[in-house]
């Protein structure tokens, strides 16, 4: 198992969770979890449903008190005041349905300590940035699900937090909304701020993540820079734009791991020659596009957790 801590690369300007343990009854939800969220990087807290991601985020915000472990902010224990300055988008979306959008955002800004005029100005600016300026006078109950989710995001950002924590922000979003939210996330970290988000849709967020912490059954199974993790993995796959029958390939060289209308993905055995595998496929069918690829995020997870797709259906490979 890879450790979530990285003492050598410790960054003082970071959110850090150390040795977080949490039990609910007999069930161990978090078992010695470490997490680092440095500034300026997109950090993904990833794993299947039930891995403990939301519980960890609730602990970060003090909504739950852990059985043991500590949360630090910029090198010292996180205080209540620190937490009030962060922005949090919970997994379960909640807004006062009978409030108007701008009133709600201004009120939340004031809860964060801003005065009314500043809160109102921030709300107006943020609604403009999020493309919601024309909905500021609407009641929440009159908004569609997608617009309400944007308002929820605005509520987490209205006080311009340094640290933004988003729990399953992509859940239920259409592709356009996913792109929009990805842009918002990137804007936040490019400004040198902190950002942590969680997702169980590993492949959906693969392009967005820079650093990942993979949780499984309450334990960190993989942690680090995603590009380095991929590069250091001995696993490689051959992708071809053709349907491949299992019998065409010597099982000592490769095996089919995925197939759909766009083609087939073959996992290469250690030491196998990709060219020889490609030739074996081309002996049966025409291949016009192919590539040797590093493992996907899902494959990294399955390898780190020592599981197969059949064992863990909750790991979703969402279509991009």
């Amino acid at each position: 198992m890879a450790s979530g801590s990285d003492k050598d690369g410790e960054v003082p300007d970071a959110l850090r969770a150390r040795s977080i343990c949490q039990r609910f009854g007999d069930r161990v939800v978090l078992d010695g979890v470490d997490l680092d969220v440095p500034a300026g990087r997109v950090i993904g807290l990833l794993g299947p449903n039930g891995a403990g991601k939301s519980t960890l985020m609730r602990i970060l915000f003090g909504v739950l008190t852990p059985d043991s472990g500590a949360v630090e902010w910029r090198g010292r224990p996180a205080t209540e005041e620190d937490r009030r300055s962060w922005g949090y988008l919970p997994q379960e979306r909640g807004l006062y349905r009978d409030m108007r959008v701008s009133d709600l955002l201004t009120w939340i800004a004031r809860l964060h300590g801003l005065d009314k005029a500043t809160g109102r100005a921030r709300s107006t600016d943020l609604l403009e940035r999020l493309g919601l300026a024309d909905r500021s006078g609407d009641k929440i109950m009159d908004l569609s699900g997608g617009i309400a989710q944007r308002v929820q995001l605005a509520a987490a950002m209205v006080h311009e937090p340094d640290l933004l924590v988003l729990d399953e922000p992509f859940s239920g979003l259409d592709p356009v909304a996913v792109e929009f939210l990805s842009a918002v996330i990137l804007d936040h970290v490019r400004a040198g701020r902190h950002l942590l988000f969680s997702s169980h849709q590993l492949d959906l967020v693969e392009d967005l993540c820079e650093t990942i912490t993979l949780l499984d059954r309450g334990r960190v199974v993989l942690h680090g820079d995603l590009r380095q993790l991929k590069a250091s993995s001995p696993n490689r796959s051959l992708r071809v734009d053709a349907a491949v029958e299992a019998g065409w390939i010597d099982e000592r060289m490769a095996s089919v791991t995925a197939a759909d209308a766009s083609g087939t993905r073959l996992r290469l055995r250690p030491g196998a020659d990709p060219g020889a595998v490609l030739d074996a496929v081309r002996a049966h069918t025409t291949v016009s596009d192919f590539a040797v690829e590093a493992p996907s995020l899902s494959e990294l997870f399955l390898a780190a957790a020592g599981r197969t797709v059949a064992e863990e259906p909750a790991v979703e490979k969402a279509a991009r």
Partner: protein
Amino acid sequence: MRGTAGIRLVAGRELTEALRRKSFWVVAGLLLAGSTAAMVLPEVLGDDGPKRYEIATVGGSAQLDAGLSGAVQALGAKLELRTLPDGDLARSAVKDEEVDLAVVAGAPGSGEGTMIVAGSGSDGLVAVVQQALARDAVRGRLEGLGVPGPSVDEVLSAPSALVERLDADSGERRAASGAVSTLLYLLLLSLSVQVATGTAIEKANRISEVLLAIVRPGALLFGKVIGVGLVGLATLACALAPVIIKGAVGGNLPEGLGRALVGSAPWVLIGIVLYLTLGGALGALVERQEEAGSAVMPLTLALVGAYFVAQAAPESPLASVLAYFPLTSPLVMPARIAVGEATPVEMAVSLGLGLAAVVVVIRTGSLVYRQAIVRTGRRLKLRDVLRLAAAGRKVAGAATVRSPA
């Protein structure tokens, strides 16, 4: 965010949103209109000034007229005298209801006059006229015996005994007691359900999750309690404004009402704090909005019991006992104050117990709310939450409680 600022903002939101709801203004308007009508209509319809009596006399005298006038004035009424020539006309006038009563005088000093009155005639009027006739007869006999006029007046002006009427206003006091306890019953019932429902909605919709990342659980609970409490007091003010105005301009209020309203203020505040805090804590136990009503059932039962006793028997021994219990005293004590049964000692003890209960309920309610509001997945048992909170453990440790991972 400091606790007080969070409480202020949460309370302010509750108040602002309530004032934007039409339902608030409808209820407030109905209470204002109903109370205004209750204060104004008796003045307009029920009291048209001093009573006027018309009495016909046949063969009377100036002394008899003066005696009749004095007697009717003693009733707080005004008299209009009419002189008729004979008894037949007097009977016709009474029969046709042209006059209330007729007096046919006998020979001076004989005391043999006749009073003619309809079957539905006022007994009080008959009695005072009889007394006037008797005085007139006595005057005539004394003068016939040669007693000088001034001496006769002195004899007849002997003071009569003062009349002390016991419990004359008991009906008004019971009415005032009933009105006050009904108003407080409806107020506490609706507000506690409102807080419980609001808390359950916030938990079900996970609004609480967003807010708990910003403000403390206590600020959420007590902000709501204060906000909804202020809405309740504003509603109460609408109901009481006509009463206060009428009292201020010197209008007649039912006996005991003013005393009950002023005297009950501490118990009203205690009741609001107790019931709303408990409503919020109990509302945090449930998973869905629809369960809020059943969650506050213990509070509803306490209110119904207290209301029944306050309405039916505020002077009873049972009421004197319930006036000490903090959950029943907010209804029973105002009723006892209204009927004049509450003693200063009883009030002081009840107030002390109520304030102690406020401290306990605020602490316990805050603990329960804090533990329960973040626990989702199923309805929690108060017993489990209290036990674990008291033990200083997280409620998440209970096998019956599930939290999302």
